[in-house]
């Protein structure tokens, strides 16, 4: 099959392109959220949509997260396909009642008589002093409830394809985007396409350790993978989990059968994180394939502080992953290779900005 024509654009541009094409394809698609049509346009992901599709389809909203979530559910029940945007995932907590009690349950509790084709985009706002209420990764809270799909695209390709697929899906789909992915580039097909909402993807093949990563942690895992291979000859397989519910642990299990070692890198708080769920499932399904104890890499169990002096070392990164890999393979730390690795993965720039070792494309 010939390759579809594509271009190299950022994650943010890919989201914007996905919106434009989904809205062209279906008149019932509506975009609503605090700041959607404002000059900053949700980190440029919604720029120009109001100019192109008009006031009826591109909306700002009153500061009423729960009410407007319910309004979008009611509109979805009547054939509209709303996309609700929360500029910070932390504000989505205000809409938890409507998401959990209504959006996730409507199809089930009314015996499949109606469904809620709602998309909610939630953005994780890590970095540069975002602090305790502007930088949380709450995917496991949302994913705990049956009836909602929860996805976390990492690549520009998935950002566009998953948005289009989510809009077409008849269920409520939450898209959790990490702010630090927005400027990373990827090769993205020009036309509209669907990316799966239920499937993990191997982004870097390897044979020694499996690293199953969520969202931005995939970027850190790729940086670690490249450096580990070139400096110490340790080969890690990086899986971009992409979806939180449903959780594709089959892809992880196949990889663990090959490597025998598992690290799960999550952006969330450690306790109750989805990383723990991945490990639980792999232990249940593939205990005998494991040569070593699985490892969880996640944020510490205290809120993210604002001060740059306190936030340094708060978040795990490529270094955390690389050290965990070396522990698992019982690799040497006295060699020149290890010294070089430490140089290669030492962050350039400040700790509260995205990793400059990888700017794309994937």
């Amino acid at each position, binding site marked *: 099959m010939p390759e579809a024509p594509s271009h190299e654009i950022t994650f943010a541009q890919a989201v914007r392109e996905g919106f434009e094409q989904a809205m062209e394809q279906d008149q019932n698609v*509506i975009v609503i959220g605090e700041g959607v049509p404002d000059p900053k346009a949700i980190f440029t992901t919604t720029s120009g949509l109001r100019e192109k599709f008009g006031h*009826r389809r591109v909306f700002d*909203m*009153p500061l*009423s997260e*729960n*009410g*407007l*979530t*319910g*309004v*979008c*559910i*009611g*509109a*979805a*029940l*009547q*054939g*509209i396909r709303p996309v609700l945007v929360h500029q910070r995932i932390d504000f989505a907590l205000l809409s938890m*009642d*409507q998401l959990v*009690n*209504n959006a996730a349950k*409507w*199809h*089930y*509790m*009314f*015996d*499949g*008589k*109606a*469904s809620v*084709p709602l998309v909610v985009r939630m953005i994780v706002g890590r970095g540069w002093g975002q602090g305790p209420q502007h930088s949380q990764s709450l995917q496991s809270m949302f994913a705990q409830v*049956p*009836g909602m*799909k929860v996805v976390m695209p990492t690549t520009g390709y998935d950002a566009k394809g998953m948005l289009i697929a989510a809009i077409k899906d*008849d*269920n409520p789909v939450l898209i959790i985007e990490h702010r630090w992915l927005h400027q990373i580039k990827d090769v993205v097909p020009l036309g509209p396409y669907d990316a799966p909402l239920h499937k993990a993807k191997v982004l870097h093949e390897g044979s020694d350790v499996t690293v199953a990563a969520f969202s931005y942690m995939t970027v850190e895992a790729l940086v670690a993978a490249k450096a580990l291979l070139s400096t110490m000859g340790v080969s890690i397989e990086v899986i971009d989990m992409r979806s939180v519910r449903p959780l594709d642990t089959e892809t992880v299990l196949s990889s663990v059968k090959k490597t025998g070692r598992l690290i799960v890198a999550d952006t969330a708080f450690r306790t109750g994180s989805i990383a723990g769920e991945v490990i639980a499932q792999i232990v249940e399904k593939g205990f005998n394939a494991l040569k070593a104890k699985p490892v969880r890499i996640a944020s510490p169990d205290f809120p993210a502080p604002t001060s740059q002096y306190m936030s340094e070392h708060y978040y795990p990164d490529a270094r955390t992953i690389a050290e965990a890999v070396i522990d698992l393979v019982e690799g040497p730390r006295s060699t020149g290779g290890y010294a070089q690795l430490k140089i290669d993965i030492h962050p350039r720039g400040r700790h509260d900005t995205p990793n400059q070792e990888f700017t794309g494309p994937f």
Partner: protein
Amino acid sequence: MTDTSPSQLFRSMLRIRRIEEALAERYTEQEMRCPMHLCIGQEAIAVGVCASLKREDLVYSNHRAHGHYLAKGGNLNAMIAELYGRASGCCGGRGGSMHMIDMDVGFMGATPIVGGTVPLAVGTAWACALKDTGQVTVVFFGDGCFEEGVVHESLNFAALHRLPILFVCENNNFSVYTRREERQPDRPIHLLAGAHGITAYSGNGNDVQEVLNASRRAVESIRSGHGPQFLEFHTYRWREHCGPNFDDQLGYRSKQEIEAGMNDCPIANYVEKINFKNTSITQQEAEIRAEITAAFEFALSSQTPTIKDAEGKVYA
């Protein structure tokens, strides 16, 4: 056109009353194993409001939904079967009394989180406006709703976009067993809606003709593009908050108050007002009784679902 003749209004109220009385009677058999909130004493609001609507208009309700469901034309067999947890119930047994739905007659759904369906109704009205369908959406809720933030968020949005929605507040003065005086300052509920820029009216919810007249005016105004309307109707709940019984013994309301409430019966009031003939009443009673008996037979002879049925339909 909806039949709004006196005999039809009377029949519709009587039917709701008799169905709920039959439910109360059978509830003690422990076969309907779900919380049940009866609307006995409040029938005039459901009947008067729904009589002002067309079949294609849309209705949402709350935990006390039987009257609204029946008044909008909801299927009785499916309702009783739902209470018995049978596969033929309107939610296939997944919902029980607090989750009524009959989309064939525009009854969009009812749920028990107080205020939860109010934004959904607004969203449905919003969709109807966007698609220019001409449908009016109605949402029923109680006085307790006015303590929920989501209701004010919904009123704000509906007023802002002048949506085709009718808000109907059934003010029975109780949230479970707590009086409104303990929950809200002394101010009329409908004025809160007015403060959101919505035309609001307050009236006697035990007078079906008054309810119908007010609803007709409101629905006509909505249809001519004047935006949302709000109706507050005062009424009285005869039985306990949840369950089939009277609850005089709890002591949260006085005997005199209960008697006064029951003396203001919307059905007896109406019979007196329209001077209905006894023979006609007897005939309607007999027809309704036969319908109820058949509905219970349908429910009890319907298939019982299993855990296998429960696993499905999580995703569309």
